[in-house]
């Protein structure tokens, strides 16, 4: 059985196909129809719903997520608000009223999703009494919401205006969680969270030891982190998994620790959560993270998932390569540490053994001589998959390049180093000409393919130019 709160009502479910997404459940079993299926892939945001929980600082907040790819089982212990829950009697929520007044809807199909995304921004900012939002804040909040009709200006206006309306009362469903009802600890007691239907199972282990036991018993079970890629196998390819283990409630996998020398990130830290953690040490990495997927995807997707999934087009692995990150892998047999360079064996092939899972990622902090440069090349700025991603750590003493680590995604079957380019930079004068010369080595390092995102020639040219761009940025602009 799993338990969650839906628009103020606690719900218990047990006999539901573990492969069901939240959207499927809401629309079929609850006839809650505001959230729509636009793409079933987490790309359009029409399915956005609000999931409330305590954030790492212990404050209650709502996150908009894609209900179309998130599993129902991942709601265990959460406080869910859909657009149906926003109106108080006949009174529209401020976001809804602003959308009406600013003409923010045309066909209306994307609108409930947009209302959800903006309501998360409205609620969380209101909690912090930060009721002024910038265009950038709104773009980030809406990065996962496609509207094909309006051209967005009216929606932007609504977002700017939403704080001008009277806030929902304390009795509003959206305020109930933080004020009255939300007590996840009490709620969890005595519940062995799982779903089971027609021989298919979903487990929500509460600890790593439970996880290790489950993996030992069911080595073929699908490990579900954020599910932002894996979910598509269900919603696009219509696969049905027999056993799914959702990691979202294992607190030890969300732990972040920092020392002088390194940051250790639990594998289940989401992209969104990592933004604050990494802001101080790796500002350029945070800029990249803001361009990974959308806000909704970053609220679901995890750093560990991005690494362990093994895709050649994941955006964080090249950064981890450049940073010389280490991975902590764990199983019932114990833990081991491995350099990320040794983790990938081929397309979607990793070093994870049966029964093993990714526990944490360890990032060495940069020394004062080192800088991290990251470039993501895609057709669209927000919520796009990279044609090429390049991450470079350049170390210099003002005269000489003393170390260079250049790693790319999208250039080969796995993320990897540009070895010859790195060698060409090492020990060379700290000058643009060194970068220009080294950039010629990209063609020796990689033999990329043509696909839907770019031609082979563009990948090579742009990767070469990005080496020069790194040099320009490193040397302080033009």
């Amino acid at each position, binding site marked *: 059985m799993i338990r969650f709160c839906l628009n103020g009502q606690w719900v218990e479910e047990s006999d539901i196909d573990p492969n069901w997404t939240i959207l499927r459940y809401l629309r079929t079993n609850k006839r809650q129809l505001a959230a729509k299926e636009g793409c079933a892939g987490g790309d359009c945001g029409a399915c956005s719903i609000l999931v409330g929980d305590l954030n790492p600082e212990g404050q209650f907040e709502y996150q908009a997520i894609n209900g179309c790819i998130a599993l129902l089982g991942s709601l265990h212990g959460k406080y869910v608000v859909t657009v149906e829950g926003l109106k108080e009697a006949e009174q*529209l929520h401020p976001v*809804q*009223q602003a959308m009406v007044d600013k003409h923010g*809807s045309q*066909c209306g199909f*994307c609108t409930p999703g947009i209302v959800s995304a903006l309501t998360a921004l409205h609620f969380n900012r209101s909690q912090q009494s930060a009721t002024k939002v910038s265009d950038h804040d709104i773009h980030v909040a809406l990065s996962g919401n496609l509207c094909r009709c309006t051209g*967005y200006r009216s929606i932007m206006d609504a977002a700017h205006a939403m704080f001008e309306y009277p806030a929902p009362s304390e009795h509003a469903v959206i305020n109930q969680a933080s004020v009255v009802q939300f007590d996840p600890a009490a709620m969890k007691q005595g519940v062995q969270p799982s779903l089971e239907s027609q021989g298919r199972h979903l487990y929500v282990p509460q600890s790593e030891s439970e996880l290790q036991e489950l993996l030992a018993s069911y080595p073929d079970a699908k490990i579900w982190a954020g599910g932002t890629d894996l979910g598509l196998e269900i919603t696009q390819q219509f696969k049905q998994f027999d056993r799914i283990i959702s990691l979202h409630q294992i607190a030890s996998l969300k732990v972040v620790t920092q020392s002088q020398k390194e940051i250790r990130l639990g594998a289940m830290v989401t992209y969104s959560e990592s933004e604050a953690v990494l802001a101080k040490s790796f500002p350029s990495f945070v800029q990249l993270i803001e361009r990974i997927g959308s806000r909704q995807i970053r609220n679901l997707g995890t750093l560990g998932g991005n690494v362990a999934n093994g895709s050649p087009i994941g955006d964080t692995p090249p950064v981890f390569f450049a940073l010389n990150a280490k991975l902590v892998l764990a199983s019932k047999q114990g833990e081991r540490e491995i350099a990320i360079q040794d983790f990938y064996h081929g397309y979607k092939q990793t070093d994870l053994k049966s029964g093993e899972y990714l526990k944490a990622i360890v990032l060495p902090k940069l020394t004062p001589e080192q800088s991290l440069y990251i470039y993501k090349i895609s057709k669209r700025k927000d919520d796009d998959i990279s044609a090429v991603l390049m991450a470079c750590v350049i170390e210099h003493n003002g005269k000489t390049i003393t170390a260079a680590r250049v790693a790319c995604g999208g250039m080969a079957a796995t993320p990897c180093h540009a070895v010859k380019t790195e060698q060409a930079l090492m020990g060379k004068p700290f000058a643009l000409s060194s970068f220009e010369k080294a950039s010629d080595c990209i063609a020796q390092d990689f033999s990329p393919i043509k696909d839907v995102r770019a031609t082979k020639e563009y990948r090579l040219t742009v990767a070469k130019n990005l080496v020069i761009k790194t040099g320009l940025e490193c040397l302080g602009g033009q």
Partner: protein
Amino acid sequence: MSFMSSKLDAYEVRRKRPAKGKIGKDQKHESADKHVTGEAVYIDDMPELSGTLHMAVGQSSEAHAEILSMDLSAVKAAPGVIDVIVYDDVPGEKDIGPVFKGDPIFATGKVEYIGQPLFAVAATSFEEAKRAVLLAKVEYKTLPAVLEIEDALKQEFFVHPPHTQSKGDYAAAIKNAPNQLSGEIYVKGQEHFYLESQASYVVPTEDKGMKVYTSSQHPSEVQKLVSEVLDLPINYVQVEVRRMGGGFGGKETQAAPWACMAAVLANRLRQPVKVRLARQDDMVMTGKRHDFLNRYTVGFDNQGKLHGSDIMVAGKCGYSPDLSNSIVDRAMFHSDNAYNLQDARVVGNRCKTHTVSNTAFRGFGGPQGTMVAELIMDDVARFVGKDPLDVRKINLYQDGDITHYGQPIEHYHMAELIEQLENESEYRKRREAITIFNQSNAYTKRGLALTPVKFGISFTAQHLNQAGALVHIYTDGSIHVNHGGTEMGQGLFTKVAQIVANEFDVDLDMVQVSSTNTEKVPNTSPTAASSGTDLNGKAAQNACMTIKQRLVEFACEKFSVNSGAVTFENNHVLIQTDKGVEEFGFGPFVEMAYMNRVSLSSTGYYKTPKIYYDHANATGRPFFYFALGAACSEVEIDTLTGEYQVLRTDIIHDVGQSINPAIDIGQIEGGFIQGMGWLTTEELNWDESGHLISNGPANYKIPTSSDMPPIFNVRLFDRANDEHTIYNSKAVGEPPLMLGMSVWLALRDAAASVADYKVAPPLDTPATPERVLNAVMFAQQHKAGAV
């Protein structure tokens, strides 16, 4: 408390204030509150009747092949499957081509594109239906496939014969001009990406008929095709459309096949069948905007003024005619955009390819034709070394000019509109600033472009320019209006309600517009060609006028006055009698009329005057009038990566006298962004075997909010339509899409700056970062003397 007393002000209040929601006022979309609460019902949100089944469609995996065998036994045996149908199971007409034949409901014998329907499955759930279709075993004998326009042109492989329009001796004019130039551009198509994919819900009725709820811009066509496949008279089929989650032309003909298949299943099983296409299926199986390959040769003087033009446009029609004949025609009609081509020939080719049959998409070929005119202006400007805006201005049509298809140019306020935009956007000042910026930045370049749009309004198929409406007034004075147009977000229902309210001068909330329904208004035209308000608004007005006339006649008789004494004002009817003014609330007056046996219901009808086109002689007046507009965009590009951003866009657009400025501005902004997306980030890609590989939003990128220009000024050009359209407004659906061309040309301008504007670098569309980088490298090589 009654509705009237709780929702509406008392008549005393309504007498004093003007009626609410009149024309010319910003008025919220009639469904705005339902949109934001999620209460607006789309097809997939409708309550399902018991026994409802879900449909999925088996698809061809070959672009061109003979079907050797099709084994569906595993499909039939799959869990949840109730029925499977193929070509021979269709009881009536098996070709569902909307205008011309050529679209078999299911492939038989051979397939002609990847994704072509082979069979349909009805199952107890959507997922079961989807899983079942994957189990089909089909053997093919592969045939050579034509996948590119170039190949079709070489082989003269067409869905219709070419069409030519000409004016004067173009060849001599080009030859005798001081300068000649030729050029070419490949303009890729566009996926509609309406947020609601194709959907229909088909329910059998007791008399062997069908009730079809569908997300379609053309309910009458769905009705006709469903009746044909079931071998029924049209009056056995009823089609209803409340709203679409976006259409953009993609639901003009493309909604019908799925409704037809579902109707065949529903007919066999006598059970309701629902179909909604999964996004990937929708993208693979339904037509898109046509790719076009455009070529030109022009002659011009040293100022850049054209002397003669020879233009070829070739549309990638896909495997069947669909609407391609009219679409390529419209590309031809718009290959002049705002400019006098002078003596000219325009040839339009309708290329057949073994790809999905391309279809209507906002602009209907017009945008692709317009691209060649703008390409010419840009290329000529670089050739003569002038600012492209100056070359555009000297080539603008003047009143009295004749287009290459014989339509006289009238009421052409383009020069004034451009001048206004040039001033408001500070074009010249910014041009100077950009030149300085570009000289002082090695790796970042800015570009600027100001481009006009002239778009012909009317269906080029003359018979479609008609519409019907139905207006009822009930005894409390509340009004119901129904018309043949469909609501896809464009605000048509809101505007028509405003028109009806305006005719009686009552509050807008007295008027209710209901679902488009073939039982209420028959034989409707598609809601397309930007014509929704022009046609249906006029038809609704016509119905109102009929009723109004009856009410006036009634008042004249009852109060012994002549018709000039009766006025409708502020929710009231005023009658000037000898004794003074008799004043009635609209509701009480209507009730009195009812008690005196006055008919309070009327149909209305409208047909567009003046228009015709003689296809044999390629001449006529296909358009009632032209909608005008212009946009000025500034961009910044990165010459190392080709990445770019739009910094600012200014738009002035001509909607005549606006019925609802908020809705019109919404159309302009949305159209601009959609046009910008088409020409920048939205890239359709097929692999060598004809598979669409940009088959979902993960790899087909429509604009997001952050792609919107951070400075985005949109203004209406304040001038009533000189033609007698509804309240002298102008159509607004399609024309603004072409404003997006300013972004494409600004990108090209930025790339040209690399070679000091001495060359017009090739920039096919969409201008992805990759193509922009290629344009930059072309300019770099040109500067280095290599090309």
